[in-house]
């Protein structure tokens, strides 16, 4: 029933961009969690999670997005979401996370909005 989750990571001047595609749920969330340490986030960078291909996100998915936020903040970096699907932004509104994650229409817009903070 669950669609596979695929992750693709690329690096921009602003920091890593992780494209998360498929169903992000109890069965797949650990894949994202496991990928966090390998991102090599540096202070002042911005971690962008590109959700354009996200088909579903449940509470375990939300958890791992929060884990990503904690991970970024602990590294002195920031986090932003790009291309949040309507369904997911609706869940974000219900659980009150809309204010917590800066969101951008595209990953490119997220990169453009990034300003170096000097760590």
């Amino acid at each position: 029933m669950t669609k596979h989750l695929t992750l693709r990571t690329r690096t921009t001047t602003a920091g890593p961009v992780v494209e998360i595609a498929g169903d992000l749920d109890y069965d797949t969330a650990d894949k994202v969690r496991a990928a966090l340490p390998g991102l090599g986030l540096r202070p002042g960078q911005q971690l962008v999670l590109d959700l354009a291909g996200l088909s579903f996100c449940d509470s375990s998915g939300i958890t791992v997005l929060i884990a990503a936020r904690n991970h970024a903040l602990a590294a002195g970096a920031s986090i932003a979401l790009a291309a949040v699907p309507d369904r997911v932004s609706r869940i974000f509104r219900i659980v009150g996370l809309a204010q917590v994650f800066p969101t951008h229409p595209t990953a490119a817009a997220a990169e453009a909005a990034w300003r170096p903070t000097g760590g």
Partner: protein
Amino acid sequence: MCETNDEEGGGPEGDEGPVDEQAQFSALLEDSAEDLYEHAPCGYLSTQLDGRIAKINTTLLDWLGYQREDLVGRKHFSDLLTVGGRLYHETHFAPLLRMQGEINGIALELKAADGARLPVLVTSTVKTGSDGQPLLIRTTVFDARDRRAYETELLRARREADQERDRLQVLATTLQQTLLPPALVDVPGLDVAAHYHIASVDQVGGDFYDLFPLAAGTWGLFLGDVCGKGAAAAAITSLARYTLRAAAVYDPDPVAVLGNLNTVLNHEYNGDDPRFCTVVFGLLTPDPDRGGFHITLASGGHPPALLMRADGTADFLPTPGGQLIGVLRDAHIATTTVHLVPGDTLLLHTDGLTEAHTGPTAGGDDRYGDDALLDFGRALAPTTASSTISAVRDLLDTFGSGVEDDTALLAIHAPQPPSEEQQ
């Protein structure tokens, strides 16, 4: 090997060794084809087309404990089989062999002269003459005692695993029950019903609810959903449930209650493994003047409650801006108030309901959703607590395995006073 060839000067590969050495070697290997036949590490058997034994090697005779003259010309291959094996031979083995001309690796049991059973793997081919007519059947028999022992061991291990799983399911169910109130308290003037839908018998879910008395004339209720499932979620469910009950005793203000829970969870779980829950906490006070109950609902990121009114309308009671509990240092708790007038019913639910897969096979991409639930409530209103729960249970049943997550339901209803009902 390559290195050796290089050292030998790159001559043509293969048989370069002295001729007499090779002859000795092959003599050592196969001094007699007859000896190989008789003492091969497997049983050989030739039978006529009707199964009568024409030739049998010493290996197989030794395994079975027969003399050659006991069998050759006297017995059929099927006579060597157990009753079950004979039946299988008649109905499957022999017909397939006739049809295909060969049959491979069939597990059978041979009966030795002393009655002992010998598990074997049997392969047979039909030997044909130059005109294609079948002449006789050649059969090899491999000792499968080790393999059978291995299979028996596998079966035993599997039985044990099944028993373990049964025990685990009992444990999970028991644990689940400890997370829920054994019975909801009786609130005078309030009709209450609840249901917990278990999505998986193997894993404890993270939904919870409760209804309990507070200081004189007030009642507390909550319903929530811990992210994830399994033992880790159950531990947080337990912590959340007891924290909520204790916090409500000290300060029943719904915002304070959820604020306390947020502090507790935020201290316990953070970093790469954050744990959160979404909760609705309500404070109920009977309204002696207007009848029914005054309710203050506080929401920490939980799906809105559904109010089904006495007049047949229904609406969600949104609490915009409320944030999930446990991951943000100062989670914002949003509140709303509602007067539950006689005839009104309030339904609290977890998102196992609205996130359920719908559609014919319940495996599609469609989820039930909030809009469908609102329509459902509008069709149901006016209703009662027990009617609401039974209607939603029926709804969950129609989703079948489409309900992937546990679902908790709590409905409260202010009944019409008896005098009004008669009007």
